[in-house]
């Protein structure tokens, strides 16, 4: 079985939240601004109108229309006002959302270029402490690897019978602990 990557609890929770509000793990949690053009689009592809803006009402066709049917002017003005309100709110929403997704990717995700569809394990609090320690001090990893090799050699040189089990136990336990630590970085 392939080794699973490990992620922090924060990253795991961020996946769950981002899943519904970005393109999800399949498309690298991608997000972009709203497509105004498509807001009234049907699934069959026809566009059921567009959001008008107050400037539109100065166009010739609207001016002519209002001249002959002035009672509709306030309605279309109100529509343009509401459309403007919606546009502003969505622009603000997009702005906040894009910034949020960017920040999460930069600060919470360990590797933003990973295949997010791959399976992962969530680190326990204890593992997280070790992980952060090793991440902050990468020079601790080579000695751990050396110690691992040393322990493996020592264990191989020991008698394998049942009577010697108590002798092997402390070495085995240390080796397991080192392997668990190295696994967090896919180094074991």
């Amino acid at each position, binding site marked *: 079985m392939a080794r699973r990557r490990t992620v922090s*609890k*924060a990253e795991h*929770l*961020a996946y*769950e*939240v981002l*899943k*519904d*509000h*970005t*393109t*999800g793990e399949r*498309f690298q949690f*991608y*997000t*972009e601004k*709203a*497509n*105004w053009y*498509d*807001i*009234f*689009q*049907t*699934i069959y592809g*026809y*566009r*059921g*109108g*567009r*959001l*008008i803006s107050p400037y*539109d009402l100065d166009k010739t*066709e*609207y001016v*002519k*229309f209002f001249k*002959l*049917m002035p009672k*509709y002017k306030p*309605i*279309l003005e*109100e*529509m343009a006002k*509401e*459309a403007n*309100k*919606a546009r502003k*709110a*969505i622009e*603000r*929403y997009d702005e*906040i*959302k894009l*910034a*949020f997704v960017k920040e999460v990717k930069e600060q*919470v995700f360990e590797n933003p270029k990973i295949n997010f569809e791959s399976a992962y394990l969530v680190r326990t609090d204890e593992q997280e402490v070790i992980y952060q320690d090793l991440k902050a001090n990468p020079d601790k990893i080579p000695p751990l690897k050396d110690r691992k090799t040393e322990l493996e050699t020592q264990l191989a040189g020991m008698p394998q019978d049942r009577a010697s089990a108590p002798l092997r136990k402390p070495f085995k336990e240390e080796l397991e602990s080192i392997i668990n630590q190295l696994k967090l970085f896919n180094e074991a």
Partner: protein
Amino acid sequence: MATKRKISKKEELAYPVLEEITGGAKNGYRTKSGDWYQMYSTYSGAFGYRRVWARLIKPYQLNYGDFAKFLQAMPEYKEVFEEMTKQCEIADNAIKTFDLLREKFVEDIKSKFVNPNANFETEYIVMSDEEEAICSELKGNTDKLNALKARAIELQEKLEGLPKDRASAPLRKPLKEELEEITKNLKLIGEI
């Protein structure tokens, strides 16, 4: 050549306005309510896989499930999400109001000035003021309309009863002219 349909000046002016805010002549000037899913999604790939990159967030969602867990672990993002839901709410309400106003407007225009059964993609002729006066007079007056229809039948019967020879042409002429005039008027309001 097929007869072109006749429309009022108001209908002619309503078309370009409706074209912008509805699905246009091609789609019978139908409207569709605002849709976040469409606004934040696109087709990609040869199999038309739909990529969605945002969904409307409601304030209550922040207290449940994934959001609640996430915000508990990272409370620094709570304000961000609260602001996002606030903006979503403003936008959603504005779009709903826009849709409501638009629906009423389009319905009103369609019921008053537009023949809802017409094929809007066909060519048309705009009625003259005189024709429009006849049209509005007949539309609001059922009695007159029925009288005209009855007169048209009467004239047709009379014409059938008259001799068809050349000598009788002057006899038929006034009846024919009256029938033509009535037919023209009835056509204006789509009764024949």
